[in-house]
């Protein structure tokens, strides 16, 4: 298989660099610095050491026996990214970019956040490496995720409210890009998913691909063979591409990415880019988007803030068209049912994002036999979503 992306940061027709000219030197510097770091055994050793001792890797691959019995089909394994420090896979990336920031000699980092998970992971790493940190967050999200706002502030981060547009993730990204354009000499922008201009989608995939490398070893140890299916949720797509990359050459391993079906595809209130989206350019990259005929970006909806975004990572768009990864969606309701099921059968409270992947497994597993194996990426834990879940269930906490 060819090496992706190419030198211009393209995954076939997707990806690239669609940014204001002022950002090109910073992207060049980042690409150069990352390339050097990637070849430097010292960087690799440092990264590995933080992943082991700070993040808590390797995370377990857990055989979900009761869930398997309950669904009555394939054997189900959960890759436990919910064990990671700060509660989700996000920190695999922020540790990597934090170390790069230090190498580049920059003193300040900025980030966008929707649900607050990436923001907390950046705030954590900024505290760890002694960097000044500012996180942009839409006011709508700040209200929904007040706890994470406070967590970031406790970690010493400035959380800046974004009042523009829909006051959610996409507006926070726009605001962070504006900050970066202005302060590019002193500041590194820690993007949270496999989105944005080259080299971000490649670099973030690389930092997250530790998930799949571990999974591959662990499933071979547990089952003596590769899984039949890998299932993961897809917002920007970093946890899924992180899990899938190590298996791309294994033709027999089927991969399914699960997008947010929101209130149902036909309702128009969802974030399933591959269901009704089309190709366009947003936030620096060419990929599948939810947009109207004039190319205006549409508002999305999902019960899960982490999946609630109008664009998908360009590498996913490539594998979708190459038919190497298939994509489906799960509605809010299905994700809630999966959340409940995992709580009650396994004592595991998944993030609402990850619950979308479990929702697909509820449909898939019963159609398979006991001799088949599914691995699901449990990308984060659900503590952050308890307030949201209570609200949906009509419970006053």
């Amino acid at each position, binding site marked *: 298989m060819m090496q992706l992306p190419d030198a211009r940061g393209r995954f076939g027709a997707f990806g690239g660099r669609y940014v*204001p000219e002022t950002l090109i030197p910073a992207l060049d510097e980042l690409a150069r610095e990352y390339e050097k770091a990637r070849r430097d055994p010292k960087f690799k050793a440092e990264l590995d050491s933080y992943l082991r001792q700070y993040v808590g890797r390797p995370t377990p691959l857990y055989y979900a026996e009761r869930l398997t019995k309950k669904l009555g089909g394939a054997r189900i394994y959960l890759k436990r990214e919910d064990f990671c420090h700060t509660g989700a896979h996000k920190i695999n990336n922020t540790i990597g970019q934090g170390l790069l920031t230090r190498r580049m000699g920059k003193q300040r980092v900025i980030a966008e956040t929707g649900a607050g998970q990436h923001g907390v992971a950046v705030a954590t790493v900024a505290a760890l490496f002694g960097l000044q940190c500012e996180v942009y967050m839409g006011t709508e999200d700040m209200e929904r995720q007040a706890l994470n706002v406070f967590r970031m502030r406790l970690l010493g981060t400035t959380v800046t409210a974004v*009042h523009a547009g829909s006051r959610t993730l996409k507006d926070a990204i726009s605001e962070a*890009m504006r900050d970066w354009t202005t302060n590019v000499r002193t500041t590194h922008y820690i993007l949270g998913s496999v989105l944005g201009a080259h080299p971000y989608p490649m670099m973030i995939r690389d930092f997250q691909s530790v998930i799949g490398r571990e999974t591959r070893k662990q499933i071979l140890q547990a089952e003596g063979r590769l899984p039949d299916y890998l299932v993961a949720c897809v917002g920007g797509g970093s946890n899924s591409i992180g899990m899938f990359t190590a298996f791309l050459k294994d033709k027999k391993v089927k991969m399914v990415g699960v997008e947010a079906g929101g209130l149902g595809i036909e309702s128009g209130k969802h974030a399933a880019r591959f269901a009704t989206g089309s190709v366009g350019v947003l936030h620096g990259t*060419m990929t599948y988007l939810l947009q109207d005929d*004039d*190319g205006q*970006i549409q508002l999305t909806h999902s019960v899960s803030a982490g999946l609630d975004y109008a664009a998908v990572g360009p590498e996913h768009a490539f594998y979708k068209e190459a038919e190497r990864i298939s994509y489906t969606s799960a509605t809010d309701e299905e994700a809630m049912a999966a959340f409940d099921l995992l709580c009650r059968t396994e004592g595991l409270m998944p993030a609402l994002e990850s619950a979308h992947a479990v929702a697909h497994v509820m449909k898939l597993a019963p159609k398979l036999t006991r001799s088949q194996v599914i691995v699901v990426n449990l990308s984060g834990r659900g503590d952050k979503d308890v307030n949201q879940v209570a609200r949906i269930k009509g419970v006053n906490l």
Partner: protein
Amino acid sequence: MNRIDSAFQQIKERGEKALIAYLMAGDPTLEDTEAYVQQLADAGADIIELGVPFSDPIADGPVIQQAAERALRSGTSLKKILATVRSLRTKTQIPLVLMAYYNSIFRYGEAAFCLDAVVAGVDGLASRAASSTMCR
């Protein structure tokens, strides 16, 4: 000579500096934009930039973003902006430069856009994040 070059030549001959004004097309409506362009031309602007509203303007600040939101609310589209330019060309020869985010042009179709823009009487394009080979 094209309208932009000849505008700069005249300014140079007069020994003056150029005044380039910016308007968000369609803020609050395209009828208003048409009137504003003529007023600016009459008041001495040398070149006018017309912003093409985009939902997620990463390279602009809050003032332009709010202007874009107003323009989008009144149903402004790239196609309608080109129609406005066509109509303006019967009234004024002031150089008009479109400022657009690439997704608007990509969705329209690069080749179709370049052709339609030239035919309508657009003199230049400043595009955020476009490839540099467009419209050559």
